[in-house]
């Protein structure tokens, strides 16, 4: 064996492996590559298929749960969104319907940022009888000067046979330099 070439080859191969550190993958093509590719592809397809079916199953169970526990005729959903979030970094929200506490949420930084980036969070899903109801939300957060502040909103709404979806929008107001809570009922 030519010892120098032997060492050199090892180094090159080591180099290839080390290139993985950069997220670069270099694999030697082996003689049995075709057979291995087939098995790999089969397993990969099977895994994908399972994942896809699990997703479908999750969706079906989710829908079944909703249909069973929250039928449209009684369903009420409340969402939270943040527009900009410069004047109020929300820490928590409390939700009351007809003066009864129904939901509360304490935000992590990641969840808060998810809202500030445009996400909408469903904070409450419940059942209500047909008729008039009162929703009250109290947001606690930090204002742009670092003080702990609270913003509250009250909203009267009517529940009919259709699902009611209400969005609580924390919106910055450039004119008042403070955040306001606006309420929007979604039109389904």
């Amino acid at each position, binding site marked *: 064996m030519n010892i*120098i070439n032997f060492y050199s080859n090892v*180094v090159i191969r080591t*180099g290839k492996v080390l290139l993985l550190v950069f997220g670069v993958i270099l694999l030697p093509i082996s003689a049995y590559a075709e057979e291995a590719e087939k098995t790999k592809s089969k397993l990969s397809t*099977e895994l994908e298929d399972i994942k896809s079916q699990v*997703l479908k199953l*999750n969706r079906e169970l989710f829908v079944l749960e909703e249909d*069973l526990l929250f039928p449209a005729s009684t369903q009420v959903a409340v969402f939270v969104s943040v527009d900009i979030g410069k004047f109020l970094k929300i820490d928590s929200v409390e939700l009351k319907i007809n003066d009864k506490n129904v939901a509360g949420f304490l935000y992590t930084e*990641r969840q808060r*940022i998810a809202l500030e980036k*445009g996400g909408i969070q469903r904070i409450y899903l419940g059942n209500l009888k047909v008729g008039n109801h009162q929703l009250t939300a109290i947001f606690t957060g930090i204002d742009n000067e670092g003080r702990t502040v609270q913003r509250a909103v009250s909203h009267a709404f009517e529940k009919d046979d259709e699902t009611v979806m209400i969005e609580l929008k924390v919106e910055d107001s450039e004119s008042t330099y403070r955040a306001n809570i606006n309420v929007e009922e979604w039109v389904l």
Partner: protein
Amino acid sequence: MQINVVMFIKVIFVSAIVTLLMGTSSSVQAFDGNDQLEDKLYRQALYFYFTGNYSEALMQVSLNRQRFKTNSSRSHLFEAGLQVSVGLHKQAEISLNKFEQSQALGLNNNSTPVIEEQGKSNTSPEELKLIALLQLTEQKIQQSDNQAAQHALRRMTQVPNAYREQYHTLSQLAYWPEQPPLTALNNTIETSQQSSASAYIALNKALQLIEQQEFEPAKILLETIKNTEWQAQSVTFWQVLFNPFLRFFDQGIKEETNEDKIQQQAINDYARLLLAQLYIKQELYEAAYYELKDFPQDSPYTESALFIFAFSAQKIRQFTTSFTLLDLMQKRYPYSNLGWQSALLFSAQATEQKSLEQGMTSYQQTAKLYQQRLSDLTRFNDDFLMSEDVLSYLSLKPEKKQAKNSSNSQPLTSNTPLTTDSLWLKKALLNTELQSQYQTLIELDLLSIHLQEQRLKSQWLYETLELNKLRKANITEKQKRRPYQAIITELRAKKQHIADMIAQAENKQQGHIFADPNQARLLKRIKQSKQAINVIDGHRNIDEYQERLARVEGVITWQLQGALPQRLWQHKKQLNVLERELVHIEQQQKRFDVLSDPELGLAKTDTHDLVARQQKSSTKITSLLNAVAQVRAETSHEIRENVNDFVSRQRTLLEQHALTTRHEMAGVLEKMLSVDKRIEQQLVPAKQTQSNAVGTL
């Protein structure tokens, strides 16, 4: 340390999608109701995405489509991105095809607004598609599925400047060791000399040139890479703005992070290593030695650099240095090929530098080392093949525990770092295919845990349905015993009576209609008194009686007339209550009729539908659990085969080293023998001279 290309692409891709959505959100006033709703539904999915829950985001997208019939091109694109994120590559391709179709049909052109990128290029749907394909390619390469990666690359027809380097690097990897066709690059590549992405292209190119024995161009390339101040890959506005938590926005867009510095150092180090390797190939040992003389200790390439440095030091007769370094190599990397080769070089040098005896001792120690490693290897292989669960070799309990405890765990993806206490497995895991197989196994276990959770949920739904059925049966039984018709008739009669009273009172404006029992009794007595007066009329003077009776009647009538408006209002209110009660009880009766009527059977259908869906889900869970178990068994088998191959290769290598050692030992023995003979020959004449001298005496 690691440049996470997948993360990079994923971030750009979804950021771009977000941009679309944010753009639509900001111009929400221009939308009609459907667009607004669609926007809100997508932002729900976004919330899940930004909180890192890709599976939930994907489910939300498909739920939006199923429940609210939202079906825009951006939904397909967003879905494709999420599918790639969770490893559903085939489905992602289908979603991309749907996106292409809707683009070709010109659908939703208005709903995919073009957003200004702070003075940079616009993010068009085509660009987003390209980003998705690049991400797909990257993942395929990570799974060592180069054919699929090549297929994804072929789907790219045109690559804008911003993505050229990424496309080029991925092409190099997908087609290695062949030259990538780069069909999507119409003109000559204008690589930026400053970008780290172009450094990877150049490094791969240099490696290819070295393998093709084209040393001069490789040398020029590597010298350039080595001496260039590489900057981190340019970070787009979108990436910084939307990148969740990799770089926080308050750190500033252009702030160089520590990771960037490490990457810059790693690129330069690797170029130096390849350059030294190139010199070795050209037998320019001195150049290699000086190239690596000040190589950093904390580089990821220290092992290779140390070995080449020791080897070149030996070649240029820097014996003290090489001796120390070869000894260090053996101690620091006892399971590495380079460590094993160092032992051989060390023994060779000991033989040459010190003495044949010392060399022989060293070779014996080296041979012992190889034998030890071979025994270790055999033991590891036996244990590994015998182990029931190949995952037991990895230390990944925290994530599995987390998955068990958290209902929000991500069942579809796993980025668990593969750590193990087994040194052999650690070495085997340098193979990306094995890494990928292990990740598959972890994913399968997560899926299995998730499915067990879903089974519990399904069971709970079943119990809820059963309880509902029981509750309904109880209600039906109770309602059957309630005489609805009699109650309704009674209520109707009551209602009619009150309505008549009200009508009468309103027509005649007479308060006595609403007289209370006491007043009614007084009125009756007045009537009786009047009759008695009439009887005694003509026998006695009745004027006084009549006057007194008229006075009493006047007082009562005055009282009744005064209370008339109030009592009229009260009766009207009572009538309203009765009417409502009647409507309610009629509705209740109708509902009950519907619920209990076996002919109508709506309740049954509804419950039956829910029960059927629950049963279907339950069956599905069982079949999926079986499928997971089957794929797990197959993957475990693949892992065992892969590890077995690794062990064979290592065994061959060690046996080769052992054989080389034995040859070298034989050589040393021969040398020792020849030295002995020489000494003997030197001693024999001396002895003869001595004996001759004795004889003479």
